């Protein structure tokens, strides 16, 4: 039994595996299958200042080794989240990352303010949602804006670790990461989804009602590993890696690339037990290789 615990900007995770924002809701449904305390943490569904209905359906499409989604941040709004979901989650003996998004900087700041007085463990600021018209990805693709929003949000969160979630739909991920680091982020997480499109050739119409959507799943894994590696080498703050992780081996690979913890998204749709299996497989790998602590492999890749 190896030591799977990791520390990400001061927060202790019993293991590095965190269901990603948006696929896991607030955990209620998965509790039927396994105890949430088995997880390193949980990233909750992206929350906005007020309730959002999201985009019209269909909101999902299958792609080779992956999927597209265009949910568009459907959520009950921050007040309801804090009142009805968060208290329950905080009882689950796992790290809670509250994922938030806003269509203006002000909105993001307001949401963060509301969370600052709660007991939530970390805030994950999504500046990279490709599925909403305003804000979302727009924030995440310009280094200056990304830095500014980080600074203003961190301002109201002096005592809470702020993780900023980055978009892969950019020319230079390290520019954004550095700017966010300079803005005061305590960690970055990446990647959010890759903007994609599918067309139903029988109807001649896009499969998603939103026309385009965010690609995730194993297909994006090599892109995510590359971006995690580049980012981990560019900033000093920890990187939470995600994008296509579906096995313990994938998680190990992404941690070798520089991730301090791992989020798991689409893989949970394929197999709802994926996070649990990944934890087990990571443990097996470490045991076989006689590595005592998972922390030893973070960023351990030796480039040629």
């Amino acid at each position, binding site marked *: 039994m190896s030591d799977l615990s990791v520390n990400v900007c001061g927060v202790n995770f019993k293991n590095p595996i965190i269901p990603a924002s*948006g*696929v*896991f*809701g607030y*955990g*209620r*449904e*998965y509790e*039927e*299958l396994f105890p949430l305390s088995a997880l390193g943490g949980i990233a909750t*569904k992206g929350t906005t200042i007020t309730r959002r*209905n*999201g985009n*019209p*359906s*269909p*909101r*999902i*499409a*299958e*792609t080779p*080794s*992956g*999927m597209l*989604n265009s*949910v568009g941040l*459907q*959520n009950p709004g921050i007040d309801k989240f804090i009142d009805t979901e968060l208290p329950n989650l905080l009882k689950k003996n796992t790290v809670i990352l509250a994922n938030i998004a806003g269509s203006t900087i002000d909105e993001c700041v307001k949401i963060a303010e509301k969370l600052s007085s709660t007991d939530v463990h970390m805030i994950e600021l999504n500046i990279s949602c490709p599925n909403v018209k305003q804000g979302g990805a727009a924030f995440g693709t310009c280094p200056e804006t990304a830095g500014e929003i980080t600074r203003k949000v961190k301002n109201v969160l002096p005592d809470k670790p702020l993780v900023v979630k980055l978009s892969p739909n950019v020319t230079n991920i390290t520019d954004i990461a550095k700017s966010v680091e300079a803005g005061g982020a305590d960690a970055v997480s990446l990647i959010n989804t890759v903007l994609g499109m599918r067309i139903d050739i029988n109807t001649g119409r896009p499969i998603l009602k939103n026309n385009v959507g965010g690609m995730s*799943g*194993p297909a994006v894994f090599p892109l995510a590993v590359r971006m995690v590696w580049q980012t981990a080498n560019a900033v000093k703050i920890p990187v939470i890696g995600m994008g296509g992780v579906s096995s313990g081996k994938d998680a190990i690979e992404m941690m070798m690339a520089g991730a301090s913890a791992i989020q798991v998204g*689409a893989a*949970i*749709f*394929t*197999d*709802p*037990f994926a996070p649990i299996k990944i934890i087990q497989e990571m443990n097996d790998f470490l045991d076989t290789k006689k590595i005592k602590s998972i922390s030893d492999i973070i960023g351990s890749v030796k480039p040629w």
Partner: protein
Amino acid sequence: MKYTQGKYIIKNKSAIAKNTYSYTVRCPEVADIAQPGQFAHIRVDGFTLRRPVSICEIDKKCGTIRIVFEIRGNGTEELSKLNEGSLIDMLAPLGHGFTLNSKFKKVILIGGGIGTPPMLSLAQYYGEKSVAITGFRGAGSVILQEDFKNSGAENIVCTDDGSYGIHGFVTQPFGDILKKGGIDAVYACGPMPMLKKISEMSKENNIANCEISLEERMGCGIGACLVCACKTKKNDEEYFAHVCKEGPVFNAEEVIW
């Protein structure tokens, strides 16, 4: 909601129409709690997303459920390659099924095409109290007739081209029976235009219990990802319901067409 995930043995496979397959799966823990109208979310090798398929029959005694599906795309094609003795990976039973009421005296079950299978478990529940009206494109796609007969339900079949049973749509015999009155509930599953028409006719005839089963593309299948949204009314307010959890069965009054 209680459900489980597992790999279960296919006890029986049969091809029941062109490109349409029936699997009987041994899964006692699922059969034990499954309700008519619920579905199984099935993993297919090589695909990221599972495929939702309705539960067609529930045999608690044998610990089996039956599913019937048509090849529509790559996923169902791959699914159709499983054989007796193969394992099928299911997340089940999922969703909110049909409201069953042992006090109902007469109910109508309407299935259109591949929407027919979930009606069978209702026919088996209501037996002689039910009239099953099923509609298909043509004789080649007619399915489950023996089973409906065995259920004790009165059995009416229509085909669009008249090659089997009544020539025409299910709404025709449905209208005739409605006129006679005495209907406690209407249950339907099939293409949207059919469901819409049935809902309207039920409303006109003041049927309080008209329940329909909807389809939407799904991610998690259990209510966590909010992918399967469908616009509904709740207390006259617009509300994005989720087909996998609040559905697939909705009261027709709730649906915004």
